[in-house]
């Protein structure tokens, strides 16, 4: 579904991603892991076209993404939930959800009911301003907003950061449901082990901008964890 | 390039050539005018002498702009205002020198004041019958204006585009003020019909030749003064301010003070240039304050190459030569040419014509690009401890 090959990225002179490879098979739930500053968010931004790549390729269902404008991702069916949610604070919940409606591939211009089935809370808050929601509610709104596009790949950057535990659990449930029932491929960045182990089917660890370990989630042993993720 | 201990003038071969050419002009042109007879094909008429004198004055203005723009990143789109103020100060002296030889024959009041029925000389004209006083004003008034304007602008941390816009506003406001007939500066007619300067007839070839030589000396002197500034430690600080202002501030440098000093010095050079311009041209009026003049001056610097000093001067001479030719041969075309020149220079020649000099091409190649030239192997060798100087 998504294949990243030999990707190199620089912030000015600082070499942040070194020949990174990542393969997200269709229907999988890939978890990108690694400590802070190791390149996870940068990699996602490169995939989403928010950061220019120096060299390497990013292919999504056969189309080359590197070098194309960021807007293309939404049209191709990639939904993105950025770190920190970034919902539109001055728009209502309903307006936030409606933002992506114009891009739905030929479908009706109506917010899919599915989103309210997954997040019933949102239905109750349609007229509430995005900025007035709690962190957990904003996270649900951000995911809902991405789902409006009916994407085939959903990318989530640290969806549980700063969220209360019960909503973390709900988010995990939603991700699993979408993947199992609708075959939605998921790429998420996550640092918390329990969530990763529960939700992901594969893992890939970045350390200092390089890929250092990868495999099915079952292989995420304590040894690997100690080597690359803990202090 | 800074190396401690190297003599100032040898820094830049192009700069030395510039001074040599200037000296040549100052020697040859007077000869062509004074020594050769009028019938000789190489004879330089008074018109020609005046034209070259005018170019050199513009060259000084360009120098003043390059000092603050090329080296400190301060883009003043109103610098012709200081040029004009210097010109007006000189003009006031020349008007008073006319004395009773004016149309109305009033020994004290210039013609335009008599025409307006003024009974006495306004207070700000006092003293302008003394040459030294007038020259002091040529320096002091632009300096004062620059100081006040700069103090407010720099202290408020107005920079970049916003600063440029308010300099345009400054020159425009001055133009409107000087156009007013009751301001006491001759209104829309300005000052003209000058008779002599320090007793020398302003219509004689000899006077024009001397003025030309004086202008050349002033230009050379300004160039050397600017060079001394930019090659000093203060000059390096100024360049640092241009490139990374907050970093300079963070290092403890009083950024506003540096900018202010530079801005005032630049205004003084422009003022002196204006003062030398007026006796040669024979007229000064408020259109010298027109915003377009300042913009043209900036184009001269851009075409010539900013950040080189001599490039700016060369640009001024070249563009004005082109203007003289085109407004004579194809007058409608000039404005298009000016605009096209600006666009072309911005797109294709960011370093101006001076950037085409071989030494500078070499320097640009050596320092170009955002990606470091060294590859990983070099860096590894570096880290292990080999200390080789770059080529």
């Amino acid at each position: 579904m998504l294949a990243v090959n030999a990707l190199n990225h620089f912030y000015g002179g600082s070499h942040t991603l070194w020949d990174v490879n990542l393969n997200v098979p269709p229907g999988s739930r890939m978890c990108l892991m690694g400590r802070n500053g190791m390149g996870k968010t940068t990699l996602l931004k490169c995939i989403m076209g928010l950061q220019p790549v120096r060299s390497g390729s990013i292919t999504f269902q056969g189309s080359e993404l590197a070098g194309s404008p960021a807007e293309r991702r939404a049209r191709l069916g990639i939904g993105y939930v950025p770190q920190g949610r970034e919902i539109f604070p001055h728009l209502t919940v309903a307006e936030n959800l409606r933002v992506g409606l114009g891009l739905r591939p030929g479908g009706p211009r109506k917010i899919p009911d599915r989103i309210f089935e997954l997040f019933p809370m949102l239905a109750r808050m349609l007229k509430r301003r995005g900025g007035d929601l709690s962190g957990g509610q904003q996270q649900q709104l951000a995911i809902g907003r991405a789902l409006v596009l009916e994407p085939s790949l959903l990318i989530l950057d640290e969806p549980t950061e700063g969220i209360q535990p019960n909503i973390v659990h709900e988010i995990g449930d939603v991700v699993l449901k979408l993947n199992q029932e609708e075959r939605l491929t998921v790429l998420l960045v996550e640092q918390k082990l329990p969530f990763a182990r529960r939700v992901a089917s594969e893992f890939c660890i970045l350390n200092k901008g390089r890929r250092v370990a990868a495999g099915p989630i079952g292989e995420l042993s304590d040894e690997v964890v100690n080597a690359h993720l803990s202090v | 390039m800074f190396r401690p201990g190297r003599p100032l003038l040898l820094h830049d071969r192009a700069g030395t050539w510039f001074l040599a050419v200037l000296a040549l002009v100052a020697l040859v042109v007077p000869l062509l005018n004074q020594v050769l007879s009028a019938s000789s094909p190489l004879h330089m008429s008074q018109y020609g002498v005046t034209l070259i004198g005018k170019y050199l004055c513009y060259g000084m203005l360009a120098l003043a702009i390059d000092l603050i723009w090329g080296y400190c990143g301060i883009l003043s789109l109103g610098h012709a205002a200081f040029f004009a103020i210097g010109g007006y100060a000189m003009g006031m002296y020349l008007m008073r020198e006319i004395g009773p030889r004016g149309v109305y024959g009033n020994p004290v009041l210039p013609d335009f004041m008599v025409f307006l029925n003024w009974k006495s000389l306004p207070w700000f004209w006092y003293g302008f019958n003394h040459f030294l006083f007038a020259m002091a004003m040529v320096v002091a008034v632009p300096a004062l204006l620059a100081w006040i304007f700069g103090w407010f602008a720099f202290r408020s941390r107005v920079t970049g585009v916003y600063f440029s816009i308010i300099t345009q506003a400054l020159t425009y406001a001055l133009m409107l003020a000087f156009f007013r007939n009751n301001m006491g500066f001759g209104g829309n007619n300005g000052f003209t019909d000058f008779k002599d300067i320090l007793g020398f007839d302003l219509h004689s070839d000899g006077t024009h030749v001397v003025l030309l030589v004086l202008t050349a000396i002033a230009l050379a002197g300004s160039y050397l003064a600017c060079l001394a500034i930019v090659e000093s430690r203060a000059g390096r600080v100024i360049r640092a301010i241009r490139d990374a202002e907050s970093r300079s501030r963070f290092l403890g440098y009083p950024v506003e003070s540096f900018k202010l000093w530079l801005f005032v010095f630049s205004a003084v050079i422009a003022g002196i240039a204006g003062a030398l311009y007026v006796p040669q041209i024979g007229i000064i009026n408020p259109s010298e304050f027109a915003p377009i003049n300042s913009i043209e001056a900036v184009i001269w610097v851009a075409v010539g190459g900013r950040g080189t000093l001599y490039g700016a001067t060369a640009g001024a001479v070249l563009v004005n030569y082109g203007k003289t030719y085109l407004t004579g041969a194809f007058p409608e075309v000039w404005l298009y040419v000016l605009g096209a020149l600006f666009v072309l220079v911005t797109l294709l020649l960011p370093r101006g014509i001076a950037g085409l000099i071989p030494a500078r091409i070499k320097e640009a190649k050596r320092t170009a690009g955002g990606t470091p030239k060294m590859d990983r192997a070099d860096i590894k060798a570096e880290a292990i401890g080999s200390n080789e100087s770059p080529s």
Partner: protein
Amino acid sequence: MLRDKRLYLEDLTVSFDGSKALNGLTLYVEPGELLCVIGPNGAGKTTMMDVITGKTRPDYGTAWFGSDIDLLKLSEAEIVAAGIARKFQRPTVFEQLTVFENLEMASAGCRSFLKTLRARLTAAEKERIEEVLEIIGLSGHRWALGRVLAHGQKQWLEIGMLLMQNPELLLVDEPVAGMTPAEIERTAELLLSLEGEHSIVVVEHDMSFVRSIARRVVVLHEGRVIADGDMDKVQRDPRVIEVYLGV
């Protein structure tokens, strides 16, 4: 046993928009010590540095430099003059000046326009610049323009510029981000060579780098110190493991 410490941070609390960036942070730094501060995103590392340098004022708590300088009463410029130098993550050397000129810019000494106009490089200044060039390993590159330096070299130059002010305390923010392995090694050597003469606080995420330079590691989480000791001790601390891994 009372000893004069270089830095005393006690009970620092800073709130931004309702959330606490620092929540009762207490930390002491010894003279000549090199310590590393680590912690997840939002732990308060940058805010702590901001308080030390005077960029942010805490709502509560004290910050003393040595036993007699109250940092909370000084302006940012005064704190720099008092001997605290900070290096930010992205190198900000002067690209159009040479390495030598960059160091000259940073040298202690007069800053007025008129004085710098007439300034000549004194023998003492030249010596100091040579000294620093040697420490940062750029002696062979003194005439290279800032912009042609490799990323690592720019970082070292910037450290060099800080050293020109003879600071007693160096605050260094993520110095090795984006560096090649060789550069990282060289940076570790550089920082270790400064230990003893200067107190150094390094914020980093690269754990192998941290291990190579720090005898003492301090872990911040949610605005306070949760662990403080050598690398092995901190690695095994269950609170640290929970904070980094969620287990």
